């Protein structure tokens, strides 16, 4: 009946996906810029305390991290433990040797800040012991890690 008869089969044309890679790349670049590499695989559970006066750490390469919290693996016990790099330390006495090992070209333990990432439920005993160890090797610059807001 219609004057303009469409020839051939009638169907919905496929969605044009040629811009899909661009969109994905955009997402990729966003995440590359907005995030940082994970330093280590966490073996202790840490809920950081909140402190509104905390300042962001500018140069992360110049910082060593010590983690103190309750072990995730229940076989490691229920007492707070110290994590140095990827493993749990046997006692706070290991901290000095570890910090010495982390010294880099032209920098002594004194120059490199030690950031303490400690769970807010941990008792001060272990923190005090770690600080005393750091003092023994003159690694005096420390930073108490805290969240700026909840």
């Amino acid at each position: 009946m219609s004057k303009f008869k469409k020839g051939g089969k009638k169907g919905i044309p496929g969605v044009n996906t040629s811009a899909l890679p661009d969109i994905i790349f955009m997402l990729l670049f966003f995440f590359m810029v907005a995030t940082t590499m994970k330093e280590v695989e966490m073996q202790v559970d840490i809920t950081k305390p909140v402190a509104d006066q905390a300042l962001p750490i500018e140069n992360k390469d110049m910082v060593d991290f010590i983690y103190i919290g309750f072990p995730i693996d229940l076989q490691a016990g229920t007492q707070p433990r110290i994590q140095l790099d990827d493993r749990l330390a046997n006692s706070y006495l290991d901290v000095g040797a570890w910090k010495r090992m982390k010294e880099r070209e032209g920098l002594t333990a004194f120059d490199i800040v030690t950031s303490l990432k400690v769970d807010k439920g941990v008792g001060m005993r272990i923190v005090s012991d770690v600080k005393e160890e750091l003092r023994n090797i003159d690694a005096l610059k420390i930073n108490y890690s805290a969240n700026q807001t909840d």
Partner: protein
Amino acid sequence: MARREVGEINAGSMADIAFLLLIFFLVTTTMEVDAGIARQLPLKLDTPPPENLEFNERNVLKILANSQDDLLVEDKFIEIGDLEEVVRDFYTANTSGRDTDPTMPLYNRVNLGDCVNQINGITTRLEENPDDMLLKSEMNKWTIKKELCESLPTQSYMEIHKSAVIQLKNQSGTSYGLYIQIHNTIQRVVNELRVLKCDEMGWGNYFDLKPDMNEEDAVVMDRLKILVPERIIESKIES
């Protein structure tokens, strides 16, 4: 000669490659921003300081936190929220130089002459023990004070008593959360007073200072540390 057509590159799998990269970055990175309160531990001395050091009660702000997370400040139980007021009072009660509050540290005036005398005294002692770390840091401090005096029109400034300290004592069961709250409170007061000092001296905005990158800012920061010092003493927890 017939030109050979260059075939188009199939970009169909480009999205897959990009997805792969995206997922890789999602897994290996974190959003977390590292922030914290910076502190410097006291230097380990070869010779322990004399046991019975004379110090005035009024120059020490005693903060005790016990294993039940109770807070005892100057022998009175207080809530953590009230600590800020006490710390601020400790710093500002006698700023005028008059003895307004006899329980808080006095301020006294430091002038150019004092600085020169001190520097001369330390120089002679340094000649005897050139490696004494403590003397070196004293020397450094007085040099900053001297430069500060020279930069001011009155050639002098008000300084809190030199042995005014905040003494923080914990027990082994004190939670780290409370400890950080105490440090945060002290830092808040110190920052607040430094902001005021910065304005008063016309040194610009305190929070814009970048002492690690800028020589001038480092000088300002050194001077602020003299004008509003944060001296916190913590003792090792004994078993």
